[in-house]
């Protein structure tokens, strides 16, 4: 976390050639796991993240169940080989906090009251990390929830903004995250309701506002990609299985 004198901009562009308000390339695949009820694989720049949804299903241990709604569990986990220095496997304090805020980012849109006494499990595995794993995880998880047919009010899309060399940038990559001045991840609904907001670093109130606006712009772009990916998978399915539009087919 040293503020080293590395330059973040060359000829007005970032180290990877992006403009300040440009996302890294995003690739989303729906339904990549056969056993899960819903799944999604996402690449956002150098991040490779896979999400699976199981449920609604019976709650174990049973004392966790709620009489009037489904509970949502979210497990964010990093593979030991996903980062430069091997990460010790298993939950640490960071991943437990990220699991909590990510769950809280998705829960507002899930219609949990449809499934009392049950659980919706969301598992997110980070296979390769390159700054922005929590936002990639939430994006994948939201698509996986839709793929599992979980009733939701709407999608959730997530993106971060950062500050490097006194400039607000969209979707910081590793170098910008490590040596930058601030990081601000958000998640939101297509209506612009914020379901996740975190920040560390240093921002003036004015910069904070601009960073939120920029992250929201990124999230809106990601929403379109999530939507496209889902439409693509399900329109293909309808073509392959005419007359079986309503059946959940596991391929």
């Amino acid at each position, binding site marked *: 976390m040293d503020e080293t004198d590395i330059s973040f901009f060359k000829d007005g562009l970032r180290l990877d050639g992006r403009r300040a308000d440009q996302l890294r390339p995003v690739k989303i695949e729906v339904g990549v796991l056969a056993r899960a009820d819903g799944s999604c694989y996402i690449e956002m720049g150098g991040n490779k993240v896979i999400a699976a949804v199981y449920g609604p299903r019976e709650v174990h241990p049973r004392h966790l169940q709620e009489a009037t709604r489904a509970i949502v569990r979210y497990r964010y986990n990093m593979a030991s080989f996903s980062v430069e220095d091997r990460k010790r496997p298993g939950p640490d304090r960071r991943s437990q906090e990220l699991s909590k805020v990510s769950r809280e980012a998705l829960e507002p849109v899930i219609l949990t009251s449809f499934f009392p006494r049950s659980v919706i499990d969301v598992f997110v595995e980070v296979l390769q990390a390159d700054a922005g794993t929590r936002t990639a995880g939430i994006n994948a998880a939201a698509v996986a929830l839709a793929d599992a047919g979980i009733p939701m009010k709407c999608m959730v899309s997530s993106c971060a903004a950062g500050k490097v060399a006194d400039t607000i940038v969209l979707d910081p990559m590793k170098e910008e995250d490590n040596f930058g001045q601030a990081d601000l991840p958000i998640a939101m609904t297509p209506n612009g309701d914020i379901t996740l907001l*975190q920040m560390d670093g240093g921002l003036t109130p004015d910069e904070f506002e601009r960073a939120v606006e920029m992250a929201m712009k990124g999230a809106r772009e990601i929403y379109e990609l999530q939507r496209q990916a889902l439409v693509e998978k399900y329109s293909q399915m309808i073509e392959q299985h005419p007359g079986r539009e309503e059946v959940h087919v596991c391929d």
Partner: protein
Amino acid sequence: MSVTNVISEIKKDFIFNLLLKGERVDGRTFDQYREISIQRDVIRKAEGSALVKLGSSQVLVGVKMQPGEPFQDTPNKGVIITNAELVPLASPSFEPGPPNEMGIELARVVDRGVRESKAVDLEALCIVPGKQVWIIFIDVHILDDCGNILDAASLGAIAALLSTKVPAARFGLGEDYNLPIRDIPIATTAIEFNDVLMFDPGVDEEAIANTRLTIISTMNGNICGTQKSGTGMLKPEQIYRIIDIACEKAKEIREKFLEA
């Protein structure tokens, strides 16, 4: 657990009806903090300590220091390690055992304030570059949870650090000296309920709201950390409104209690 929930359903109605009239259970305005008191140096064995009372909420923060190895990527900097214990004496809903996600989040947000504001001059805590640096343990002990323990814990952490003496003599490293502090981060938390924003929520107010936003601001009025918590949503305008009030409140608290 279920018993308290039944009561809180009734209380929820009560609080909600008051709220429609623009009132809070204890008569405060929506942006008013409960009475704050900070006692420093309450634990003689600790290098620094503070007992914070925020209304009836009580949080004790102790700071211990010892020499140790630096992190490889910061060979010239001291190390901060923050822990929080939600001990079962503080609330009927706290249980013994390893910290749950609430405790982890609390510790990490307190840590975020101290770390991101660069409150502690970590370079001044280097003893032998790459070999030996001072390690600061900030341990938060919640004693009585009557709401908003996050703000109380953050306040306790910086208050304790401000009174911390580096125990150099004990480790044969010269004379004791005051821990060098460069900033005073203050965390302020608001909850959102029915488009009403309430600062410094009491325990019942926390129970009715499902969204909470914490803003940590520094002496120059900048923001060094935020955390949204809970399963609700916030409009951008609500966020900006919270930031405006939070920075004001933080300034008041800082001037009144910590800038001597």
